[in-house]
């Protein structure tokens, strides 16, 4: 049966690839909406890794962490999109590079 199962390393490989792509999007996009999307992708890829690890051991803990990640993502998106509205209102643009007034 082992040979027919999905190898854990392959799932982790997919997860890492998604993480890398999400991080790439995070670094290269200037639009704040895309930045939020990239964050979602990265969170999702870690969730995938947790669930896969949980499945590897046949335990429910992985899915519980997934649920926690889900709530974090939900809260983050809620606040993040509120900030998007504010930024759009203040700078009339979604360009993150404009939001550099604090120099910090």
């Amino acid at each position, binding site marked *: 049966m082992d040979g027919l199962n999905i190898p854990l*390393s392959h799932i982790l490989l997919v997860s890492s690839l998604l993480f*890398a792509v999400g991080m790439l*999007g995070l670094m*290269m996009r200037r639009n704040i909406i895309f930045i939020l*999307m990239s964050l979602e*992708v990265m969170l999702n890829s870690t969730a995938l890794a947790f669930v896969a690890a949980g499945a590897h051991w046949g335990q429910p803990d992985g899915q519980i962490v997934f649920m926690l990640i889900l709530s974090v993502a939900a809260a983050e998106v809620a*606040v993040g999109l509120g900030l998007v509205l504010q930024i759009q*209102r203040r700078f009339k643009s979604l360009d993150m590079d404009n939001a550099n007034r604090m120099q910090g």
Partner: protein
Amino acid sequence: MLEISLFYIAATVALVATILAMTRANAIHALIYLIISLLAVAVIFFLIGAPFAAALEIVIYAGAIMVLFVFVIMMLNLGEEGDAREKQWLSPAVWAGPTLLAVILFAELLYIISSVEGPVSTAQVTAKQVGLTLFGPYVLAVEIASMLLLAGLVGSYHLGRRALDRNIDEADARALSDSDSDSDSNADKGEQ
């Protein structure tokens, strides 16, 4: 065999959809690709014996969170020129460096993963098990998550209310510095 081939298909779809989502100029297009990617990940969850997680992924991620994105994007009413600007921002000079870093990071992760052995059991971890564990040993985490969600609720309400209130909007615009206030007032008229 079917499961394995389904996994590779779903993984490929997830990757391709994510890459496309990251490189789109139009936010709505990107969002659609992102939803596809999330659905593909949900398929993977299902395949590795986590149907509850798969359901949550579809309902909350692809459903609720992405719809939130769609609402906000529609509210911002980004036009065609926004797309053109996005294309301009995606020049090779911009993405070459980050891509190099991302590749290096991936290589490091790959090195770590390479030592991982063993398959994923196809035995399902049911919703009941998850629920028992969640409200058993992890009950504190549930409390923390609920507080986090409350904070997110209050924060987004506060930010969103101020954003939609016109009077406060103009008062704030006046408080901004000279260079910004010029463009602000012009754009305000356009919005009205």
